[in-house]
């Protein structure tokens, strides 16, 4: 049996090269393109959880007082349950924009929305 190279015609090579070009440039583009907006949760300075903002899910994050329940859905990310006393974290509502922060201070859970460099927000920080 002939080797593949003996069988392949000029047309074959053209097709293979075109397909290779498409796939390689696709890979290169993906490698350099910014990832989506992400939800990053830290506790005591360590990142304990990270997920894309656009994939609905819910998760329990463990802190010294117990689990803080986080929900990501189309409203954004919010805390729905936490073992703290004042439940301020729950009343903070959903966070959606880059730079938004949620925190359960007693349980040492800090949630922030990160976006890749180049997120064009109307403002860098919010004074509240």
């Amino acid at each position, binding site marked *: 049996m002939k080797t593949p190279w003996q069988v392949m015609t000029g047309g074959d090579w053209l097709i293979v090269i075109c397909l290779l070009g498409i796939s390689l440039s696709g890979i290169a583009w993906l490698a350099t393109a910014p990832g989506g907006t992400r939800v990053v949760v830290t506790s005591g300075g360590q990142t304990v959880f990270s997920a894309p903002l656009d994939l609905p899910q819910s998760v329990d994050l463990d802190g010294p007082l117990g689990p803080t329940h986080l929900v990501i859905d189309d409203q954004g990310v919010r805390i729905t349950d936490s073992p703290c006393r004042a439940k301020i974290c729950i009343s903070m509502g959903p966070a959606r924009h880059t730079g938004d922060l949620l*925190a359960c201070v007693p349980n040492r859970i800090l949630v922030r929305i990160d976006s890749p460099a180049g997120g064009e927000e*109307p403002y*860098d920080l919010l004074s509240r």
Partner: protein
Amino acid sequence: MPWNRPLIIGLLMVLLALTWWRLQPEEKEIRRSRLMMGTVVEIMAGGLKTSKLETAVDAAFAEISRLDKLLSSYHLDSDVSRLSQSDGGGKVAAETAEVLALGLDVAQQSGGAFDMTLGRLKSLWHFDEEASSVPERGAIAAALLGVGPAALALDGLEVYKQTPDLEIDLGGIAKGYAVDRAIAVLKEHGITSAAVNAGGDMYLLGQRPKRPWRIGIQHPRQKETVLETVQVRDQAVVTSGDYERFFELDGIRYHHIFDPQTGFPARGCQSVTIIADSVALGDALATAVFVKGPEAGLQLLAGYPRAEGLIVAADGSLYSSPGWAAYRVAP
């Protein structure tokens, strides 16, 4: 062939230019948040070397942590707690003295609207616990005894209390001071572009890597809306609002910015934003203006020519100091 040479040289030059452009070191920016001082502290720093940025930011957080232990009423052996416990006052660290000096100045200028001796009053209103209630009048009156700008005197590193059971609370200025010190630490590490934000009290150093800092000001009643956006450089932006910590009882909102005259939450404003040279000053002025209300507040600001303010009055109308418009970029 001779006519090819210019073309080749031209192409080489283009190639060289592209390579040089590609090799330019890129400005990086890091963003780190930590839970400190009972709130979220966020530091953004821009520069060429990420390792240098990380070191500087860690040092800045360490400084904030150190100052928190010195100035917070929640730490039992902070300067503040010691002063509150002792009868006559005591000796404090240089930083504490610096904060007190600044605070006393604003306290006097504002006729007592900004007050650092409301420790007992704040304990009465205990905002940090679940079941909040309105304290009774007698308790409030007792907590206000001896309160006022004259209640404290500062001589070098010595603090004198006029009344033995006076309790110090630096809540309206300590965070701001910590941010100022954090910025100083960043500058010591050679950082020229940074932002330190402690729960909405922030300082903007230099510019962002690509453009000036733009700060949105939260609308006091509409959570998702920005009231205005300002552009600042090497300045502090501080907002005090009645929506940050509050509870509602019988339809009345009780928030955490007290009027030292009544012992109840100040009713003149919904929020106050101050742009100033330091966050400590901005913090103190924001509280003072909030307590005084829009008109008296603007008069107070007039005495601080390098400070500007935006006030949302209790009825929602907007007031701003004359120089404020220069900072506004939107709407």
